């Protein structure tokens, strides 16, 4: 019998690892696909902040693939994914996470991939009832249907409580060896991991994407509101992951580095933003995010005082702040750091 081939969606978490492993154990040739949306938690934040410097910086999807001994194809879907985030047909979850549309989109991309690469079916680590939006019993068929994958989509961890799929009907995989996990309790997955000899895996609680994060979603919503439309570029969504975001006036906000790692990262954007830092004291690099021509002298003064507020001179009477415009012309302001009472909580995004 020819060996059947499956493409497994690998997120880097435990569930997709187990699902792929169950297929390998049934003699299926498995290759992994990992979609990069731009919102993936993977790596970025670890790489930026100082406090995470000592954490091992590993890409979990690659790590999972290596544990399984399978190839992994990382696919950049940043551009196409915009439509999913901006116009989710099924709406958002608790934050700006369009999980149901997202899953459908990813399975559709996987379907295109298996068609191009002559693979037989698609595997995901989904479990019925585990997530409020995309993994309810009534929404799982929506993913299979709307992605076009239909019964080419196999979810080994809960297949036994779902209708039979083509790989099962055709005898490529043995349904009896598939599982019937359901609900939010993750103990069965952990027990299975243990049994299969996996004891070091990414903790599921971390979440796989920034769109499920309330703080991140608030910053993204602010960005859209200020723009007057839901639109973003990759740099916009990267910058939302970094620094404190403070909006003292509706027409501008400041992105303030929280440590050397973030200051360094923000430095990479110096030629695209008016930016400032205290020259008389140690302190953060601050980007000023505003449409050009909208910021007044008073706004710059306020920005300088805020910059001083977050540096070592915060309790001094006077701090010198250098403001670089887009042509890197520098103007120095001698300012009194903003007093904490003058910094309302609502300014923080």
């Amino acid at each position, binding site marked *: 019998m020819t060996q059947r081939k499956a493409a497994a969606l690998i997120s880097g978490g435990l569930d997709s690892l187990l699902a792929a492993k169950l297929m390998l154990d049934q003699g299926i040739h498995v290759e992994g696909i990992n979609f990069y949306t731009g919102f993936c938690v993977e790596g970025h934040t670890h790489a930026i902040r100082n406090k995470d410097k000592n954490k091992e910086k*590993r890409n979990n999807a690659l790590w999972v693939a290596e544990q399984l001994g399978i190839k992994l194809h990382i696919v950049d879907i940043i551009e196409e994914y915009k439509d999913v985030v901006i116009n989710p047909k099924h709406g958002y979850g608790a934050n700006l996470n369009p999980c149901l549309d997202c899953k459908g989109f990813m399975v559709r991309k996987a379907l295109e991939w298996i068609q191009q690469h002559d693979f037989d079916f698609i595997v995901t680590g989904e479990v019925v009832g585990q997530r409020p939006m995309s993994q309810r019993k009534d929404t799982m068929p929506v993913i299979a249907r709307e992605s076009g994958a239909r019964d080419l989509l196999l979810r080994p961890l809960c297949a036994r409580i779902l209708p039979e799929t083509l790989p099962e009907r055709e005898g490529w995989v043995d349904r009896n060896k598939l599982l019937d996990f359901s609900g939010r309790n993750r103990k069965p997955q952990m027990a299975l991991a243990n049994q299969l000899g996996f004891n070091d895996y990414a903790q599921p609680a971390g979440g796989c994407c920034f769109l499920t994060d309330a703080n991140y979603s608030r910053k993204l919503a602010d960005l859209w509101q200020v723009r007057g439309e839901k639109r973003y570029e990759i740099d916009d969504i990267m910058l939302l992951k970094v620094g404190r975001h403070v909006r003292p006036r509706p027409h501008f906000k400041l992105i303030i580095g929280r440590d050397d790692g973030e200051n360094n990262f923000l430095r990479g954007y110096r030629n695209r933003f008016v930016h400032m830092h205290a020259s008389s004291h140690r302190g953060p690099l601050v980007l000023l995010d505003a449409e050009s021509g909208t910021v007044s002298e008073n706004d710059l003064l306020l920005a300088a005082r805020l910059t001083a507020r977050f540096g070592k001179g915060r309790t001094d009477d006077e701090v010198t702040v250098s403001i670089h415009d887009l042509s890197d012309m520098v103007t120095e302001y001698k300012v009194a750091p903003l007093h904490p009472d003058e910094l309302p909580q609502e300014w923080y995004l």
Partner: protein
Amino acid sequence: MIMETLDARNMLCPMPVIRTQDKVNGMASGEMLEVVCTDHGALNDIPTWCRINGHTVVETVDNDHEVIIRLEVHHGA
């Protein structure tokens, strides 16, 4: 031996890996690629990607600001 280079500076994980993957797909077995990154995570990720896809890391260089990964392409079976 042809040595190609890929500038992946200022890109964050997993973009250096994605760009490496795309570049390698267009190269022939036996060719060498040098990838320059500022994200130190690449020092783990690109070698892992090479191991699982059958390419060989020839050398890695880690200095404060940049990491350089030199690899040899193998398109196996």
